[in-house]
């Protein structure tokens, strides 16, 4: 049914776009919550495949379900029916539930069973009789296979089960046989389990509150050590640490430690944080200290060097990381930059700064600006072009007089113009607004060489850089 037609039937209905990725995420969270029933909770393999390949929209909605492996856990809840009732309560009666000896059977019964109450099968002998009236699509087979089966008049699982298995594999594909055998328990099936995302944080409440500076510093260091221990035992490292100090007046002191690269090394982190903690002012009584690690990454174990005797000066990448982290924590990540050249003729766009060293793949100037030598561009470029007043002869003579930042400069020599036009091939053509510039290289009477340009549309003059 089309949406307008549906809205005509029930005006005021709440409509939202289909977003399979969000659904998938929500289902994952729900599955994580189900970990209270059993340590193994899984989602359909099709969902994982669809998520990784980006074909989630084509995945059938029937696959949006949760599988709980309750082998051995039912006795915690009394008997198995009580367990089903528990789960029913947990989902507030909105879920279709089936309990069966195989994943395939439970899947089919929960999706295609007619009655609303939970279905429970206890032995493998019951499986065949319970599944035989269900349609073949309940076997989790692809649609083209079920269409093929329908063509030869096989619509029920019972009909299919009566055929010899090898003919099924030959005529309808191996996959149908797999699914049939998995449903009947003749073939093993693996569960794609979900995991709770681990949080790495520690906090400690102090009673009586801490007042002396020495004990606060000791407590902070101990907590950092504890967080790193957590990280290390899970083979993880973190790129960002957050320290919060709560005092008895309910005010909070927060300090962030954004690192340039992830770490799980105690000595490295303490060399970075110690000077900062030394500079912090603590006042009043501290009630609680909390540390959170974020931006978790998997840690890689690296061989430091092949032969320690040879060439001790070769610096470790670890040492490099430590250096970058030291700067990054103290003066901020956005102030620690690496440069990269871009393919552009417009001076201020021909380079950019980044704060990650790894992502940079730069071209050489030689490739990018073929007909210039390095020296034809000024060594210093002003952050933004600055407006100047000039006296110049039209149409294209260099200015003979410049007033810049209130100072009057007489121009002795000038070379130009060199026209730099907007890049018509660029995607942001509308943003350019025709910034055609005529650049001149001029020498003032003190001997400085300046790079000035005239904006072609407004006829205003700007100073852009200088050779210093």
């Amino acid at each position: 049914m089309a949406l307008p037609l549906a809205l005509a039937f029930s005006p005021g209905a709440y409509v939202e776009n289909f977003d399979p990725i969000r659904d998938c995420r929500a289902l994952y969270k729900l599955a994580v919550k189900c970990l209270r029933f059993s340590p193994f909770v899984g989602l359909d393999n099709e969902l994982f495949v669809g998520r990784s390949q980006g074909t989630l929209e084509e995945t059938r909605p029937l696959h949006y379900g949760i599988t709980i492996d309750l082998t051995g856990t039912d006795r915690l809840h009394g008997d198995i029916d009580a367990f089903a009732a528990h789960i029913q309560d947990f989902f507030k009666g909105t879920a279709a539930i089936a309990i069966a000896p195989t994943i395939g059977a439970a899947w089919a019964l929960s999706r295609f069973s007619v009655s609303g109450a939970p279905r429970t099968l206890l032995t493998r002998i019951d499986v065949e009789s319970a599944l035989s009236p269900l349609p073949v699509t309940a076997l989790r087979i692809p649609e083209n296979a079920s269409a093929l089966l329908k063509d030869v008049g096989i619509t029920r699982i019972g009909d299919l089960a009566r055929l010899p298995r090898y003919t099924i594999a030959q005529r309808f594909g191996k996959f149908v046989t797999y699914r049939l055998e998995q449903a009947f328990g003749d073939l093993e099936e693996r569960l794609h389990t979900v995991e709770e995302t681990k949080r790495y944080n520690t906090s400690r409440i102090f009673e009586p509150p801490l007042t002396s500076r020495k004990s606060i510093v000791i407590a902070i260091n101990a907590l950092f050590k504890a967080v790193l221990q957590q990280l290390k035992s899970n083979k993880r490292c973190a790129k960002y640490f957050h320290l919060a100090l709560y005092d008895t007046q309910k005010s909070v002191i927060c300090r962030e430690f954004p690192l340039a690269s992830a770490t799980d090394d105690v000595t490295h982190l303490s060399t970075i944080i110690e000077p900062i903690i030394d500079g912090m002012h603590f006042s009043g009584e501290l009630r609680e200290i909390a540390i959170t690690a974020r931006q978790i990454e998997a840690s890689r174990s690296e061989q430091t060097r092949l032969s320690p005797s040879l060439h001790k000066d070769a610096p470790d990448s670890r040492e490099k990381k430590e250096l970058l982290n030291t700067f990054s924590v103290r003066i901020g990540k956005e102030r620690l930059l690496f440069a990269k050249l871009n393919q552009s003729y417009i001076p201020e766009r021909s380079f950019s700064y980044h704060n990650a060293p790894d992502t940079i793949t730069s071209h050489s100037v030689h490739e990018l600006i073929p007909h210039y030598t390095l020296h034809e561009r000024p060594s210093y470029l002003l952050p933004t072009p600055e407006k100047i007043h000039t006296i110049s002869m039209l149409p294209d003579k260099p200015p003979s007089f410049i007033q810049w930042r209130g100072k009057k400069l007489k121009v002795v020599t000038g070379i130009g113009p060199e026209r730099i036009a907007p890049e018509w091939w660029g995607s942001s053509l509308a943003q350019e607004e025709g910034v055609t510039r005529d650049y001149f290289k001029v020498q003032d009477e003190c001997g400085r060489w300046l790079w000035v340009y005239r904006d072609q549309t407004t006829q205003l003059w700007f100073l852009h850089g200088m050779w210093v």
Partner: protein
Amino acid sequence: MKTLELYSDYNELSNLSPEQPCRTRTLSKGINDLITEGIVWNGNYRAVDNLWESCSKPVESLQFNVPEIDNALPQGGLQCGAIHEFYYQDPTGNVPSTIALPTLLARSAIDAYYASPASAWDRTNSGAPPFFIAWIGRRSWPTPFAIPQHLLSSCLFIDPPDEKLTLWAIETALRSPLIKLVIAECPRIPLITTRRFSLCAKASGTTALLLRAPQDLHMPSSSATKWSLAPLTSSHLFPLWSLTLERSKGGALPNSSWTITLESSYEERETVSLRVLPRMVDTDYEEKFKAQRFG
């Protein structure tokens, strides 16, 4: 195999005159020591390793690659592991300090690394040079397209928010053996701070080029050299500077001022080299030139 190579090196080195750069002199001295101890010929690999290390030590001076200037300095270039100050004498002020000259020196440092035997080992390992060149303070940053490609990948641009952190960043960079060259726009600092910087630099072997305001030229400092740079008016169609060596620790100054320019050829576009022009005193010519142009 390694021993044989070293032997052939030694044959060349033993003929060297004392005017050769320091690095090769220490190398030959190292070999001499080993020969007197009689370990090189025994095929003692530990000794060869030690020798390898001594070769891979950073070059002890930073050259301008211009004999006129390099020969005026006691180490045959700017001494490594020390601080050097540059004062840009801008006649009207409000212009950042000199940038082209530090860029050239940074390039010379990286070229010296690529020419050293240690680099061959490092490059087989990772490809990039194992050190950084730190530019501290936004006004000392050259435009990235004025930096040659192989230098740009090891450049680290640091932009401290205030003076205090600038000094902290300079000191941290100087303490680190991973940073080969620190180029910093330096605020006004007293003698004690420069001495502190010198000690850091000496300990780690890092060289610092401090770009300072011209008013501070006569303030006491413990730098190894002091340079002042001023633009020169000329009839040439390229920038011309007068470079003056104001002070050089342990060096005599016979002729300590040069007229320099930077040039690059169309064949090697990424190469910018320093050229010393003969002192131009022909003011008449300039007058004539001006008259001709604006008369």
